[in-house]
């Protein structure tokens, strides 16, 4: 029991950090770049994706034995599209303001390769429990990335975070951050930062290995 709990936890952490869908696997970029010009939009998009991912992972792993191989992709897409439509309507009914901001990009969650990819690679081969842990991790990682990107763009672009002003009235907004080039460049630089961390870690590991080697 404890072991499987640990496993589930591992799956979760893997998605949030080690195999972060955006920063490490670079998946699901289109729907994310377009809407992440503020942290709150990032949260909204992240939550929408979260819901779709959890829902479809659950259904797919539940039905995995009933779906024949040949039509599995079609079935996955139908399942995903269903959840996306649900999210679309629910958002439209409950949070029309947010829905207006995210606009046409909500339906595009269907095309997010992250979701289909998880179904194909994980949910359709694992127990419901693990599938949910994996979905939770991936969705949380995606949410984290969206909020981080949206946050940076909002802080520089408007001097605010979640709508709260940070620098006072005299702040000069960095308009580009909210514009498309800002999205590209910020994500590029963030990936660069992750590469740099990775490189640094590798160097450190190599050093540690070297000193350990000499000790022996």
């Amino acid at each position, binding site marked *: 029991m404890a072991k499987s709990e640990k496993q589930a936890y591992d799956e979760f952490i893997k998605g949030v950090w080690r195999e972060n869908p955006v920063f490490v696997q670079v998946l699901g970029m289109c729907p994310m770049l377009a809407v992440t*010009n503020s942290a709150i939009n990032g949260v909204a998009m992240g939550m929408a994706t979260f819901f779709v991912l959890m829902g479809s992972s659950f259904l797919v792993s539940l039905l995995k*034995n*009933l*779906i*024949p*191989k*040949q*039509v599995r992709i*079609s*079935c996955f897409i*139908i*399942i995903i*599209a*269903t959840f996306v*439509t*649900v999210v679309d*309507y*629910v958002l*439209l*009914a*409950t949070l*029309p303001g947010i829905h207006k901001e995210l606009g046409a990009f909500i339906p595009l969650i269907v095309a997010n390769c992250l979701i289909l990819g998880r179904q194909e690679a994980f949910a359709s081969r694992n127990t419901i429990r693990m599938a949910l842990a994996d979905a939770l991790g991936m969705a949380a990682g995606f949410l984290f990335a969206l909020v981080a990107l949206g946050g940076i763009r909002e802080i520089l*672009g*408007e001097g605010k975070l979640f709508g709260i002003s940070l620098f006072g009235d005299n702040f000069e*907004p960095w*308009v580009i951050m*909210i*514009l498309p080039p800002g999205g590209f460049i910020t994500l590029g630089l963030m990936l660069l930062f992750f590469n740099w961390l990775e490189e640094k870690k590798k160097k450190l590991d190599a050093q540690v290995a070297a000193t350990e080697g000499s000790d022996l």
Partner: protein
Amino acid sequence: MSEEKQAAAEAGEPSSNRLVGTLAVAGLLSGIIIITVYLATFDTIKENKARELREAVFRVLPGVDKMQRFLHKEGALVVSHVEEKGEKPIYGGYDKAGKFVGYAIPNAGPGFQDTVSVLYGYKPAERVVVGMWILDSRETPGLGDKIYKDAEFVANFDHLSVDPKIVAVKKGRKAKPNEVDAITGATISSKAVVRIINEGNERWLPKLSKPGLEPALEKVEATPEKAEAEK
């Protein structure tokens, strides 16, 4: 366990019937879910939309309390309650007493970045624009978006003569009743708004009913949005 084995055996050679069947079931299932959610949210969504429109109309036509949709058909304005494809409506606003106040006219055109959708209020009796609101735009945050965020600019349209046509001038140079102070740094967007309104006027002014002969306020219950509002 044995079931699983069987399924695995079947997975090798499932009949095409089974494939189609699975898809059909999946489609059916998803259809059911979607329709359920659709029905559950339908009313709220409809109301949200109607409220949004109403708020916009009330904003561009001060003093208005009730509204109805008009279409231009066979040379005259007629009241319409159902959406019809391809026909562009305008809205008539009436005060508490049910007296006609003015029209709210939507129009759209290219702005700095993408299409800008404008709704503006027009009083035919005085031939003035009495309000302007941006329904949708992708203008640059901090610059172009001042066309709706900058109250000063929006106030330009509170009493604006349409004769001979509206003109945008450099900020601070407004002198005539048909002139608009453009936003510094967003001249293009400002001019776009003016152009869109001028185009709307060109299209609609000749089609409007003679002042005083506007269609009267019909039975209020007929408009769904009114029904919602009364609840």
